């Protein structure tokens, strides 16, 4: 440990940064945790590199394997032939491209071509990095975050990008009830300090705020201040991003062309053409037929041919994509926590990962602090299948011969998951009947019906499975799905212990404090089991080897601004 190299840095550091450096220097946190945390609080990459170098024998470079980025090999190789169009296959966006209201991966991907985030996806680390904001710092207790904006950015219509745009965009999201920002900021939080600085005063302390205005909160793109709520990209093409929307037809596809005024310089490729599909199978055949160069997302089954294709690069990234099996804790047959534990104990998680994802996933432990997070606490024992114990618990709770309907949506592998759960639970004496509905119907009828509106989701079904997309912080999961009166709280979980631990997590300064809070959260959720979470699965995307430099987030946003055609 070369403290001499560390000292200059320590002298310049803020209280938080100091804390973090100390933890790392003394080996209390891993290098990975340090780097993740450092990125969040806004330490620049050179600084991080210097610190890491100071704390190890060999000079190191930032790890290239991030949890949620998928990078094509040779990404930083010399740019090849300039020009060309990349043809991408993606899911048809559910509705129009409304940056505030969109909810599906198809739309996220489209919007991310033209619009950008304060914190973008760093291709090298897979974490967040400078985007429309070049740097950010918190104050000592994480209640005020200051963002330095990138100079020289203009909108595609020519007007300059200013702090006003940032403040207005965030206001719009607060009004719309954006899941990530709810309870974190309010309409008055954003303030333009000067031409290049914007400051956010949070409603309550939050150590992960930059994630909530990053690529990982897909709706937090920065739109012009004059964009009224409800404006869609296809109606008014604009943006600060590398690509200009040239045409959009919800039935067939969209076409973007190079934005010559992009701050990142001219893109090697001329254009991006999206073709919309209803299913993954035709996407794969389209690639095999030579009509598609890249696929935003596919699953293990339809992608079987792709794994063995020497001309196709498959990018597999561990994510926090998961399914929540919610159980109503306030009414119905799952009120007794022993019954919920019994159901969780009947699940054979390894088998599920194997059967549903051919092993391309990870077992989860009925709580939302996934092992990808730097503050994951290893102290919670992994729940494994125990049919005997499940039966005993059911008997103790007087629920032998339990029968229930398991509501699921027609989405990817979820119907199959329901079939597996039905079979596995049957061995513990629980009889479940799967009921499959289309996604739109399911959300409104089973998961979070509009009525009764207060508390939210209080009309949810007794038992069901809902999908959750990848997030780099658990804030959204904790806030919306599990906190008392959360907007997505279908299990109607209302535990003061949990709420306290969550508040502690949000206010926590420093990785160690966060981990301590998480230990409490994990233990609470694992014991009470308002939601059973059997696994997380990897995000699969890929492209033909005729293109390099393509990388994606796990939220369906495929970035081709530094991609180029090979030969």
């Amino acid at each position, binding site marked *: 440990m070369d403290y001499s190299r560390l000292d200059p840095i320590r002298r310049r550091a803020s209280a938080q940064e100091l804390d973090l450096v100390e933890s790392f220097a003394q080996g209390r946190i891993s290098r990975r945790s340090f780097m993740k945390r450092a990125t969040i609080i806004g330490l620049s990459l050179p600084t991080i590199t210097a610190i890491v170098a100071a704390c190890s024998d060999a000079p190191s470079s930032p790890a290239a394997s991030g949890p949620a980025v998928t990078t094509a090999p040779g990404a930083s190789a010399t740019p090849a032939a300039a020009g060309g169009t990349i043809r991408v296959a993606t899911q048809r966006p559910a509705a129009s491209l409304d940056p505030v209201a969109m909810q599906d991966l198809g739309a996220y991907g489209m919007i991310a071509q033209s619009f950008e985030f304060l914190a973008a996806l760093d291709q090298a680390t897979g974490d967040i990095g400078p985007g429309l904001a070049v740097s950010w710092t918190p104050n000592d207790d994480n209640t005020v975050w200051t963002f330095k904006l990138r100079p020289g950015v203009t909108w595609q219509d020519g007007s300059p990008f200013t702090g006003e745009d940032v403040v207005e965009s965030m206001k719009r999201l607060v009004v719309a009830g954006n899941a990530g920002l709810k309870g974190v900021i309010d309409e008055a939080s954003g303030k333009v300090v000067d031409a290049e600085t914007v400051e956010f005063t949070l409603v309550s302390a939050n150590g992960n705020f930059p994630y909530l205005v990053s690529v990982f909160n897909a709706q937090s793109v920065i739109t012009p201040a004059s964009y009224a709520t409800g404006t869609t990209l296809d109606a008014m093409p604009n943006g600060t991003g590398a690509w200009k929307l040239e045409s959009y037809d919800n039935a067939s596809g969209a076409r973007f062309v190079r934005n010559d005024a992009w701050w990142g310089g001219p893109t090697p490729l001329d254009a991006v053409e999206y073709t919309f599909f209803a*299913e*993954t*199978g035709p996407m*794969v*055949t389209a690639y*095999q037929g030579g009509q598609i160069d890249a696929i935003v997302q596919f699953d293990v*089954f*339809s*992608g*079987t*041919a792709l794994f063995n294709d020497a001309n196709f690069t498959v990018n597999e990234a561990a994510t926090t994509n998961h399914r929540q099996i919610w159980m109503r804790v306030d009414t119905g047959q799952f009120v007794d926590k022993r019954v919920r534990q019994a159901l969780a104990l009947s699940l054979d998680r390894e*088998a599920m990962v*194997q*059967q549903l994802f*051919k092993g391309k996933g990870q077992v989860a432990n009925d709580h939302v602090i996934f092992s990808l997070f730097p503050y994951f606490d290893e102290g919670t024992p992994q729940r494994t299948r125990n049919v005997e114990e499940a039966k005993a618990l059911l008997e103790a709770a007087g629920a032998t011969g339990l029968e229930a309907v398991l509501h699921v949506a*027609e989405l990817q592998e979820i*119907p*199959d998951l*329901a*079939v*597996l759960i*039905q*079979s596995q639970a*049957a061995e513990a004496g629980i009889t479940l009947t*799967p*009921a*499959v*509905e*289309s996604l739109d*119907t399911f959300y409104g009828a089973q998961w979070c019906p509009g009525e009764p509106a207060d508390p939210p989701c209080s009309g949810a079904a007794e038992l069901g499975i809902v999908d959750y997309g990848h997030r780099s912080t658990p804030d959204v999961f904790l806030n919306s799905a599990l906190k008392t009166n959360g907007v997505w709280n279908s299990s109607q979980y209302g535990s003061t212990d949990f709420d306290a631990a969550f508040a502690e997590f949000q206010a926590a300064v420093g990785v160690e404090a966060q981990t301590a809070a998480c230990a409490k959260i994990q233990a609470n959720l694992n014991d009470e089991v308002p939601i059973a979470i059997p696994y997380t699965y990897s995000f699969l995307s890929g492209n033909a080897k005729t293109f390099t430099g393509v990388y994606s987030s796990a939220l369906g946003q495929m970035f081709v601004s530094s991609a180029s055609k090979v030969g």
Partner: protein
Amino acid sequence: MSATTTAGVPPAGAAAPGQAAERKQARREVLRLLVRRPGFIIGNVVIGFWVFCAIFQLAPYDAFNDFDLGHLPPSPEHLFGTDRLGRDVLSRIIVGAREVFIVAPLAAIFGVVAGTLLGLIMGFYRGLVDDIISRIVEAFLSLPVILVALLTLVVLGSSTLVVILVVGILFTPIVARTVRSAVLAERQLDYVTAARLRGESGPFIMVREIFPNILPPIIVEMTVRFGYAIFTVATLSFLGVGIQPPSPDWGLQVSEEYSNMIGGVWWPTLFPALAIATTVIAINLIADALAAATSE
């Protein structure tokens, strides 16, 4: 579908016992003709096989809970391989036969019964009643069956009962039209006039006089509808609004596995598809034989 009576036998009502005996003889004649046709025999063998499967469900593995490795190719242990979750495909097909032979016949029967009633009324009374109902029938016919079924199932949610009802209702107009033409042809014949002169009431004439004579085309229509029912239910399951998982319904199996063919996994799609195809072919063979036999 010819509505003519079998040759040489005068249409009978509640008349002389001699005529009843003649009718019985004619039926036996038809049966004899039927049995000679190879199409009829083959059709019945195939259907018989599937009905056997449906009733006894003698499958080598549990079609619901027996999970082996996913997508195993056909082998001595798994004659038709395993599906993506590792369930034996052969077992699922055998067990799935019951689903097919309950839902499809019920839908067909429902459609035929309703359609016959409607057709009888339309054809017999004619006039305004016929015109109005004909318009409604035409309206139903101008939309593809699949579309209306899909719409209804999306709105009402898919359950087996709803599927049966919807498919049955959608078949009613088609059957009604056929029955109507048959009735139109019959009502001009002498025996109907005779009955009317006798003072018989409308419903009586319909049921006791006309109906027995249009039975042959109805039977043929029922068989054809059965085939279409299997088709339609399979397509609805394929589109995701029919039978629900984890049912081993054949159409649902194809729907769940067809995209895997691209990866070279052909068996979980091919065999259920063949099951559907053989059943429908067999039914069509029987229907053709019936049609030919009753019109000779």
